[in-house]
């Protein structure tokens, strides 16, 4: 599995960022949507913005995402940047535990992470 952060659109300092989970293997993979964190903005010399997750499904089983071979799953968020900001995203398993902007508190739970995306204000 690969994670990537990409800028979908930008209007001045308003940017739309998409976190993409890509199954780059020939076999189906499954993960828990509750373990996918990001995009998480960390402005330079400022407090990190709250970590982005998505609401859990009412039925636990519905939190499982099955990605067929070479298929995508993703999440999109809009941000306003006023300082150079680094965006992070990662997937942990099992879900939960402490989730910091740049990665999980327990590195053993890390499954995959996206290359950080650095954006500067105009």
């Amino acid at each position, binding site marked *: 599995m690969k994670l990537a952060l990409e800028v979908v659109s930008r209007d001045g300092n308003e940017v739309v960022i998409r976190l993409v989970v890509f199954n780059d293997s020939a076999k189906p993979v499954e993960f828990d949507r509750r373990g996918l964190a990001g995009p998480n903005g960390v402005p330079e010399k*400022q*407090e990190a913005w709250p970590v982005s997750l998505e609401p859990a499904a009412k039925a636990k089983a519905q939190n499982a995402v099955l990605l067929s071979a070479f298929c995508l799953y993703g999440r999109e968020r809009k941000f306003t940047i006023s300082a150079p900001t680094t965006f992070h995203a990662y997937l942990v398993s099992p879900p939960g535990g402490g989730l910091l902007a740049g990665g999980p508190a327990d590195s053993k739970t890390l499954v995959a992470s996206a290359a950080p995306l650095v954006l500067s204000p105009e």
Partner: protein
Amino acid sequence: MHAARTSRQAAIPTTKRKEPSRLAASHVPLTHDLLFLQRTIGNRATSLAIQREFEDQGEKAAPQPVLEEAASGAVNVEGVNAFGESDGMVGSGVAPHAMSNKGKTGSDLWEHAGGAGGVGNQSVGSAELTAPVYETRAATAKKPAKAWIKSGTGKVKVVRSYTGVSSGNNGVYKHGGGTTWVTGKASTRIDKHEKEHIKSSKALHDAHIKPVEKRVSSYRGLTGKNKDGADEAAATTALQTEIDWNTAVNDFATNDSAQNTPMGPVDLIDQAKPDFYYNFGAKEVKKVQYDHFVDTN
């Protein structure tokens, strides 16, 4: 989560305080009735008279204040007394010896939605200081010079409190627009986080401020000890060395700033806990769609 808890310091204007009453020190006969002094000049005069009698054991030499009462300023604003010792704004003049934890003072919209909630009400490292004022008595043929600390000086007041976050609709999300909903659980968790900052400041207060206050207390005023020296300057220097005021207040300010600054250890340790709050993105609450649903896991 922090706001005032940044490294920026409110510039507190320094205020020159008036010189200790030399009138009280040098023109009040020791034989005066203390109640008369209290009525006509005030407690300070009484205290000086009592002190002199106590110190001199019958000798009539008047105590000589060796410096003016110090100017005021906050820890990092750098008001200093004549000895270069950090001094700060004086409030009521009755500084507590324990850190004052005023807890949650109210609630506001979340700081991430443009409010002042989830924020410490004081700057990190801040404290109100009343630097020690050293008083001395000259050496005599039989006794060395003595130095002590004037009553009411040598105090540090550390106050910490925070503003909580109102649960419910918190308005527009600051980092990207859209509406924000903060759950009751998230609001409670934000309070818990702010309490962690206060707990950290209290631990640092106890480690750095309490000991210096204890040292000062033992040399303060009427009932305190004296430091001896060959002359007044030597006695004062010896007392200053023992008190070590600047080291204590600077260590507190430096460590409090380092620990409680945004993304400092207190933030990072707390954020790493599984019960921290997160932005769960878009979600419907009570049939209204919000763009940022803030809740705990």
